[in-house]
């Protein structure tokens, strides 16, 4: 007794759909999502995984099926059927993928909007957005230092901006990020803190205003699914709101030289109380640091090699000694610039 092929096809189709739907939700390939934006991106990824699983199974299935079913048996003569095409079928397999990619595009568009990709303040037309004037001495120092191009103000602030709900408002926490071979320096202009790690309070909107000193770097926080190149001479920004307390890696994702792989630091998401404690402890030690900086400057850092000069700060900022040594090899004049950041 034969089961009609239409029934078989139907059952296979249902099975395929179920498997795809299940795997699309349960692949477990993504790391923890630490923000709402990350959850959005994950749902986009899950949707794409669902479709992909289906397509993958269809294509591989057909290949394997053909290899078994239509294999030429030993001694078999003759050709296959002389079918040169089937226009309705071809239209079908043009239209379905077209509809799928269109749908993915629209979905991506929405998610992108949700993330803040269309924030007008991040569209490249607003220079120096969100930088508090007056108190921004640290950022001013960052911008003016060393080899960073000065003079012409540039169109800037590209990246991911505020989500639609928060647009037009300033972020709760502003952090200026400087990427340099091979470390990150985070400055909190409102509270005068400089750190080698990114500390943020959970649930508050954070804005990173990013610049690079030497070559292109990229900030990547996998748990936030966010990445943005950090380009010398052009300011870029990222805005996000975390929703999970924890410690997450913050990596450089754009090739920036030999020790690119070790240009890693941490993003620590605190509860509000912890965050306040951290600020207090930092401000204390910042005062102590300022003393050291004064003394060092009195020593005239120009006479010291950058590596030697930087050594006391290196630990403080989470920079590994070998990198400082490497900077020295690069022959970069960084002493002054770091000092001005720390100041």
């Amino acid at each position, binding site marked *: 007794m034969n089961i009609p092929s239409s029934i078989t096809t139907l059952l296979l189709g249902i099975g395929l759909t179920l498997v795809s739907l299940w795997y699309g939700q349960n692949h477990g390939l993504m790391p923890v999502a630490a923000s709402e934006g990350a959850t959005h991106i994950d749902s986009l990824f899950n949707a794409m995984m669902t479709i992909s699983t289906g397509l993958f199974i269809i294509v591989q299935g057909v290949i394997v099926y053909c290899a078994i079913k239509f294999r030429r048996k030993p001694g078999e003569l003759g050709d296959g059927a002389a079918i040169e095409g089937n226009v309705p079928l071809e239209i079908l397999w043009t239209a379905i993928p077209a509809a799928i990619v269109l749908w993915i595009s629209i979905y991506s568009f929405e998610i992108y909007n949700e993330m803040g990709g269309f924030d007008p303040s991040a569209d490249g037309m607003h220079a120096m957005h969100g930088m508090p004037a007056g108190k921004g001495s640290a950022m001013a120092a960052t911008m003016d230092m060393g080899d960073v191009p000065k003079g*012409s*103000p*540039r*169109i800037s602030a590209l990246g991911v901006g505020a989500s639609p709900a928060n647009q037009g408002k300033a972020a709760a926490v502003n952090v200026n990020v400087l990427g340099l071979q091979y470390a990150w320096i985070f400055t909190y202009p409102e509270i005068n803190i400089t750190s080698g790690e990114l500390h943020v309070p959970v649930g508050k909107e954070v804005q990173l205003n990013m610049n690079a000193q030497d070559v292109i770097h990229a900030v990547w926080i996998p748990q936030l699914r966010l990445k943005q190149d950090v380009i010398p001479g052009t300011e870029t920004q990222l805005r996000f709101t975390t929703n999970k307390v924890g410690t997450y890696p913050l990596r450089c994702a754009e090739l920036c030289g030999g020790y690119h792989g070790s240009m890693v630091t941490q993003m620590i998401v605190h509860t509000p109380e912890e965050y306040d404690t951290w600020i207090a402890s930092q401000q204390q030690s910042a005062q102590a640091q300022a003393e050291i900086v004064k003394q060092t400057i009195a020593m005239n850092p120009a006479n010291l090699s950058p590596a030697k000069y930087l050594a006391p700060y290196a630990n403080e900022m989470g920079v590994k000694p070998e990198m400082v040594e490497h900077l020295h090899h690069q022959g970069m004049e960084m002493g002054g610039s770091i000092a001005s950041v720390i100041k």
Partner: protein
Amino acid sequence: MQGSVSDQTQINIESASESHDSHGHHEHPDFRIFGLIVFLVAEGMIFLGLFIAYLAFRSMAPEWPPAGTPKLELMLPGINTVILLGSSLVIHQADTAIKKNDVKGLQLWFGLTALMGIIFLGGQLYEYSHLEFGLRTNLFASTFYVLTGFHGLHVTVGVLLILSVLWRSMKGEHYGTNNHFGVEAAEIYWHFVDVIWVILFILLYLL
């Protein structure tokens, strides 16, 4: 697409490839002009890339040309433009001449075109030497020198092409009504160089 090949299976490869070289062009219609035009499309894409890069730099800069760049003199490049555009008309006369089998006419007009090309290059060098900015002064200066220089390189190649055709025609070579690939190629190339210059002139001097 005709040509007897029946005896070629036996001959060894060296003589075969020789025979190929010597009458390779007679085996099939001459596609060299077609090939040249395809090549010039590719060549044009280099310029197009550079032009777009120029426009991108321009649109990204807050001020263009950057503050402190001396204004470009229009007189000399203007004359240069007229000379180069005129030379396109002149070189076309050569083409007309050779199609009437007039080798003397070809030599006259080619000689004149080469001369005009050399005057253009001279004018260009004169302009370079009197500009108040150097290659590294700013982004505008760099793009200016690289674009005009790269074009100048093409003019030089064009002049050399014209001169080599001229030299070959002097040596009593084969140009005539039915055989003027070299003449036509040099002419097309020269027109190409001309068109590029017009775009370049508008971009750099007028915009």
